């Protein structure tokens, strides 16, 4: 009596748990599987169809090895095989397969060995789940990472090349130039009295050309150094930076009688010496391109979207809006050399400095009505690689 009752209750409990299990495994996108002692699938729940689009019947009677596995290293496969032969449980064995349409899918499966009462091996049972999404993301991530590493390598190499170029420019390009100008000058020194006015004029052009070439090379060098010789970003007192820039401009400021005012300036996270150069170039331009009036220059500062925006406003000759982009390009000039000297390097260097700091530089102006240069510097800084 007691035996039968117990057995019935056990059976009922078992049927209940079986029903609950079936209901659950039907709900889940994961699936349940069973294998016999020859590791052939004997059961496969419907989740496998919902997840992978493969009907459960296709698995029945086949072992894991009869269905081709891809995307697993030989060593991992061997370890899994060894675990199965030792009748050990396994956890999260991940592998790829192709479905009938040739589409790759990835599966993660875990299993437990099943033994009868006498300890005889009866097979495995376990659960599988579709990890195609994760694997695809992982692959994409790995590819992106590899690409990034490659880019970083390229960047390092191009930086090295740039540095080498800078050295070549400072030495090898200057030497022939020195020969041209020195020997032309020597020629004039020794034989000047024997040459006529035309010959003197011609040699003047040679010497002047060589001098300008030298200036261009030096400017190009300075431009390339913004990227390769920059210092770390540290908090820099904006006003101290301004005063340094103004000290460097003292001769020009005094000669022009420029009146320079400023707002209270914030502490900026930047390469301080580049910031000095930036302000110096912009204020220097404001003085250089003055109009008929005495230059009045104001350095302003305001906060905007997590960045500091500094402005340098002048009452100079202004810039035609059609040139707003061009002025920041290397060696682009808007005026003849006789009107305003220079190679056209100043604003290109400004732009490169601001770019390196992850900011933006722009200008607002009307021809004849002064101009206002703005640049933004993010408050929190991480060096942007240009």
């Amino acid at each position: 009596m007691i035996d039968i009752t117990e057995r019935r209750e056990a059976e009922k409990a078992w049927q209940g748990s079986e029903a609950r299990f079936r209901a659950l495994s039907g709900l889940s996108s994961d699936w349940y599987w069973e294998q016999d002692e020859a590791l052939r699938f004997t059961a496969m729940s419907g989740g496998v169809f919902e997840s992978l689009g493969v009907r459960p019947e296709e698995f029945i009677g086949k072992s894991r090895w009869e269905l081709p596995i891809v995307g697993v290293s030989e060593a991992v496969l061997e370890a899994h095989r060894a675990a199965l032969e030792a009748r050990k449980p396994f956890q999260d064995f991940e592998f790829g397969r192709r479905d009938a349409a040739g589409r790759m899918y990835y599966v993660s499966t875990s299993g437990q060995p099943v033994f009868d009462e006498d300890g005889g091996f009866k097979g495995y049972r376990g659960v599988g789940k579709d990890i195609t999404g994760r694997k695809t993301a992982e692959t994409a991530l790995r590819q992106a990472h590899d690409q990034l590493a490659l880019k970083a390598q390229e960047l390092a190499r191009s930086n090295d090349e740039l540095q080498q170029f800078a050295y070549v420019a400072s030495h090898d390009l200057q030497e022939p130039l020195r020969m041209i100008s020195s020997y032309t000058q020597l020629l004039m020194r020794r034989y000047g009295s024997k040459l006529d006015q035309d010959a003197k004029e011609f040699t003047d052009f040679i010497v002047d050309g060589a001098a300008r070439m030298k200036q261009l090379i030096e400017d190009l060098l300075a431009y390339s150094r913004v990227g390769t010789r920059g210092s770390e970003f540290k908090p820099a007192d904006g006003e101290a930076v301004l005063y340094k820039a103004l000290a460097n401009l003292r001769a020009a400021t005094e000669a022009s009688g420029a009146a320079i005012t400023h707002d209270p300036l914030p502490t900026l996270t930047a390469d301080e010496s580049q910031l000095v150069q930036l302000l110096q170039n912009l204020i220097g331009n404001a003085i250089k391109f003055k109009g008929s009036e005495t230059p009045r220059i104001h350095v302003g500062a305001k906060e905007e979207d997590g960045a500091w925006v500094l402005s340098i406003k002048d009452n100079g000759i202004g810039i035609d809006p059609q040139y707003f982009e061009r002025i920041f390009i290397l060696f682009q000039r808007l005026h003849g050399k006789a009107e305003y000297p220079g190679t056209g390097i100043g604003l290109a260097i400004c732009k490169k400095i601001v770019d390196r700091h992850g900011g933006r530089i722009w200008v607002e102006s009307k021809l004849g009505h002064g101009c206002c240069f703005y640049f933004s510097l993010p408050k929190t800084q991480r060096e942007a690689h240009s």
Partner: protein
Amino acid sequence: MTDREGVAPPVEILLVEDNPGDVRLTKEALKEGKVYSNLHWAKDGVEALEFLRRQGKHASASRPDIILLDLNLPKKDGREVLAIIKSDDQLKQIPVVVLTTSKAEEDVLRSYELHANCYVTKPVDLEQFIRVVKSIDRFWLTVVTLPPAKPQ
């Protein structure tokens, strides 16, 4: 130092320089100077060391009173030559003036680390170049008291 004009033997200068244009220019500049000098020319680092060690065709070379050294040279470059001179007990007393086109900070620093006696950048302008050579000449060969020639 005795009066070098007339009485004293000429000052021996070794110029280590690969560019014949620069050699000639240095000669011309020295000509304008007041110091009576013999300019010897080594076209690369290897020849400079042969000259200093009186090897091969330089067996009867005179010991220079001063060396004008370019940095970028074929075969053995100026930095190596400088390092060898300054670690050689026989040669390290000879003042070495690095005379180069390079303004690169690393070259300046490296040269002084290797015990160059001074570093001079060649100016592009002829007048300035002549002035520089003359002032090297004046400073190192008339102002400074050089070490007495070693008996060898």
